[in-house]
């Protein structure tokens, strides 16, 4: 049992303890959700507890090492002697802590969307309405049409029928955070039926290179477990003053639902009548709703 293990045990205790403290810090400052989806929060908190226990144990182990006593069986998992390897190993282990502590917490925004690519339409097939190429915008049809029917041959779309009906009943349609993904999917899948409806939706401003001066996307980042799986979703918005909106600012868009050709596909397009600046919401990301679609209230 070598006394040099003392330094290793102590360093490891510091790293374990460091992770615990970092997780506690994130929870207390409310920033944990920047990194982890809410459904994962409990187990991450539990791992903080486990790491604290490990840290405490390692402190004892360090003291025992100093006394020259083996804690129980310290003959494995012990680091080798190479200072280079040890430095690299411990730097790697410390890296998330150092970066986590010293780089400010940031909400993922346009830069991440650029990398991941925004999803503007999930519909597997375009609806029957065909737009001649070259024409960019369909004028919204007049509201006051009788209640459209939400049926589809596509089983994926059919799952959203009931939910789409409930959404259609609202005037204006208000997109809520906890049903965000389901609502935009429903509108996207039943694009024709939703033509002309008034809608209120919030998100951050995102612009792609191939968008015109009157176009931007009102976007949200959807996360399922952690930022690696975060996927950007949104609707294309047509607004004459689009160019004045800085990227990543949060806005509320009041618009009428229509559609247009973009990137070779027909996608939902919002004809905005009003675009308001808003404060960034407490919960910047949206998450899939796991309730049964048929019972979901928009």
């Amino acid at each position: 049992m070598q006394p040099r293990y003392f330094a290793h045990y102590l360093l490891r205790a510091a790293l374990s303890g460091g992770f615990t403290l970092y997780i506690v810090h994130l929870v207390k400052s409310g920033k944990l959700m920047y990194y982890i989806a809410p459904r994962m929060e409990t187990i991450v908190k539990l791992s903080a507890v486990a790491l604290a226990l490990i840290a405490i144990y390692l402190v004892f182990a360090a003291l025992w090492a100093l006394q020259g006593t083996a804690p129980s069986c310290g003959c494995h998992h012990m680091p080798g002697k190479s200072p280079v390897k040890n430095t690299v190993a411990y730097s790697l282990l410390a890296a998330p802590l150092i970066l986590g502590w010293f780089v400010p917490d940031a909400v993922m925004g346009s830069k991440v969307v650029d990398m991941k690519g925004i999803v503007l339409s999930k519909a597997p097939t375009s609806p029957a309405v065909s737009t001649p190429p070259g024409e960019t915008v369909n004028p919204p049809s007049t509201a006051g049409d009788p209640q459209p029917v939400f049926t589809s041959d596509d089983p994926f779309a059919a799952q959203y029928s009931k939910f789409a009906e409930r959404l259609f009943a609202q005037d204006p349609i208000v997109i809520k955070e906890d049903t965000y993904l389901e609502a935009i999917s429903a509108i996207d899948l039943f694009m024709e039926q939703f033509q002309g409806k008034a809608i209120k939706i919030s998100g951050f401003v995102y612009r792609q290179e191939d968008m015109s001066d009157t176009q931007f996307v009102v976007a949200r980042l959807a996360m399922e477990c952690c930022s690696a799986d975060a996927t950007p979703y949104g609707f294309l918005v047509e607004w004459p003053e689009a160019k004045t909106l800085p990227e990543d600012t949060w806005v509320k868009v009041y618009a009428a639902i229509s559609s247009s050709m973009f990137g070779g596909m027909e996608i939902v397009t919002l004809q905005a009548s009003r675009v308001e600046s808003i404060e960034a919401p407490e919960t910047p990301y949206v998450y899939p709703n796991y309730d049964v679609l048929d019972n979901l209230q928009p």
Partner: protein
Amino acid sequence: MIHVVRMAIFLMGIFLLSLLIVLLMNPHVIRSLPLMDDPELQSFKTMFVSLTLEALPFLLLGVLVSSLIQVFVPESWIRRIIPRHPLLGAIVASLLGIVFPVCECGMVPVARRLIQKGFPVYAAVVFLLAGPIVNPVVYSSTSMAFRATPSIAYSRMALAVLVSVIVGWMLLRFVRWDPMRPETRVRLRNHDRGHNHDHHRHSHRHNEASSKWMETLDHAAGEFFDMGKYFIFGAFLTSIIQTFVPRSVMLDIAQSDGAATILMMAFAYIISICSTSDAFVASSFASTFSPGALLAFLVFGPMLDVKSTWMLLSVFKARFVALLALLTAVCVWMGSRLFEMLM
């Protein structure tokens, strides 16, 4: 002369340590540097921290189970779980993941421990491949993400079992050399020797039962740091890729379905997402890629990706990992093309 140098290094160490402590107490000094506002640095940091945090619980669970197996489960039990017959053995191994649903990060320490306790290597490999997929958590998240096409969910399970059994069987038949890294074997020998040795020197401050718990904790702590550094390196690489390589570069539409399948497999390998949430990402591609390509993404990713390759390299020889990767890739590709024709 030596004394002076040692003194200098010692003082330098104290100075740096104090500097570190001061900085830790006053992070705003660093946080307000203009460099810290670089959006790419922030993206990278978000990705890196997020990957590490979400894997921590599974890594801890993995090393805990591995340590419990080490301390409490006798070797005779381990050797008896897997039936002698290789095919039967492989099938049983592929279903073991049902009792142990974690990310691949948690599986590697358990697999290593099982091998050290006498679990046949090929069965451990089958477990490593199928475990991250064939379990209730992943099944439910897949069927949730692909609500309207339940065939995706059970095809995923079926293909995972098929591929893992085939790969395991092939490795059993064709690998005649020791696939384990030398350190892993040496540790086992030292451990046995060490146990007998240390019993004389123990100051018996604990009775038998609690010293077993201490041993578990000791193992778990050590293994956590062993595996942790490999995992974090994998997470580091993944974060670099996710921050600097746009998805569009990886997803430029391939000409044929076969090529698209390869593309999705490469994509799955590079982005290294946990098997509990990759269905969510795959569903956002549902309109662009064929079901076969999606299936390949969903099966190949949890079996092999940047993070898990790195962790495998900590346990197995590089040659073995390469062989494993090749066999898995070929099987997944062929399997998903086959399933697509049947779906």
